[in-house]
């Protein structure tokens, strides 16, 4: 029966092994008599098979034969020096997977814990005005009822009541009494001056002017004051030496602008208090917060 080249190639393995039936072998011989390509193919495969058969069987070195598990490998005088698998490569797969998984989980935990800290350290209040405002939000209690002139760390001697202003003479008395008050500013403190007013926008430029007069940088966003729900806030980091003077100025402004142009019966009140900052403040500095709350 005539066969084609495809059939001849399919039976190469059996033909080389001599396991084909005789009639099949005759068919192939008949085919290759006329097909040079198949003839060459079978000859070459036969040569390759014989070449592989002629490869010398490599004998195991005698030291390995005697004591395979104890001797140092590779043996000296080897053709090429091989790398002994490292300890890690010799570790069982389940241990390796466990250690790698734990390492990955630990790395993720460290990153998740460290990123906020790095971010907060990077965004220091001295360099970043936005951070100043954020810090202010964190620190300042924006409730309408602020404590009135109470030093949270003091003994209570510095308490005083809100100063409602009623007439011109009283106003003059109050202005005179401002200079007699002495305050001490410690390290790492936040000083809060609060003016309750029905017109924060009118008092705002006066506060700004007063702050500029203390040679505070004009480009500091805190010097403009932030408009927030309930009023306007000024939040700055200043030298602690100017705090007493600032207090006097703010107090004066509160008293001087107590007559509202809207003729409202509600009067301005001035209160102040201080507390320790939760965040680190450079030595010699203090945080100044002036809060103009809308009545």
């Amino acid at each position: 029966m005539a066969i084609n080249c495809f059939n001849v190639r399919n039976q190469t393995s059996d033909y080389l092994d001599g396991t084909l039936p005789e009639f099949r072998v005759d068919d192939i011989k008949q085919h290759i008599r006329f097909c040079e390509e198949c003839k060459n193919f079978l000859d070459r495969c036969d040569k390759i098979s014989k070449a592989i058969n002629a490869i010398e069987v490599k004998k195991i070195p005698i030291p390995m034969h005697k004591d395979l598990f104890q001797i140092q490998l590779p043996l000296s005088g080897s053709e090429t020096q091989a790398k002994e698998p490292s300890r890690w490569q010799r570790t069982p797969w389940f241990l390796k997977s466990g250690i790698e998984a734990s390492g990955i989980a630990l790395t993720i935990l460290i990153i998740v814990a460290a990123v906020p800290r790095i971010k907060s350290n990077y965004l220091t209040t001295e360099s970043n005005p936005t951070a100043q405002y954020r810090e202010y939000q964190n620190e300042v209690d924006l409730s309408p009822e602020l404590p009135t002139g109470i030093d949270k760390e003091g003994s209570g001697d510095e308490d005083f009541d809100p100063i409602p202003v009623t007439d011109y003479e009283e106003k003059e008395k109050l202005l005179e009494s401002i200079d007699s008050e002495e305050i001490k500013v410690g390290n790492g403190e936040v000083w809060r001056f609060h003016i309750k007013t029905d017109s924060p926008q009118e008092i705002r430029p006066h506060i700004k002017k007063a702050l500029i007069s203390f040679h505070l940088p004009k480009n500091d966003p805190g010097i403009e004051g932030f408009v927030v729900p309930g009023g306007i806030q000024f939040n700055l980091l200043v030298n602690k030496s100017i705090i007493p003077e600032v207090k006097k100025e703010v107090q004066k402004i509160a008293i001087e602008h107590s007559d509202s142009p809207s003729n409202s019966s509600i009067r301005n009140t001035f209160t102040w208090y201080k507390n320790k900052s939760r965040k680190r403040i450079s030595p010699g500095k203090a945080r100044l917060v002036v809060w103009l709350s809308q009545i």
Partner: protein
Amino acid sequence: MKKDKITKTPWIQTVINRYGETVYNLCHRILLNEGEAQILTRDIFKTIEKSPTQNRYHQFEKQWILKVAFQKLKQSHQQHIDLSLKEVRELNETHLSKEERLENILKYMRNLPIESQFILLLKDQLNESYDEISTITGIPIESLKVKRQQVLQTLEEWIWQ
């Protein structure tokens, strides 16, 4: 360790005496690196020694041991595989005659998949039967024959191009 009843040597030593050469030859011819072949041979017999007694195929011992060797070679060979056939091109560029290329058949074979090399070495060098090779590699007999034919065709194209 379990002892051989006749010779009273540890079982593993008997196994090494019987099959050490075959395993070492396969490792050496595939990895083409004596040091690595020595280390891998030891690794294979360590694995065999650690196998529980009930999992030792005493009846089909040879096939089982060569199967372990095949698995280990596959893992080891993963690091060496180069599908770019750069070595084949370099060999052909050296203007060797066809006979000389046949003498370097192992270098051509190194560019084949591990399975193909294993089949060729077991069949053509060690003259194992298809039944045994099928048990060792887990490939059906007819598929083995087709694979061998395809591998021979590939080698023929490389050497006679």
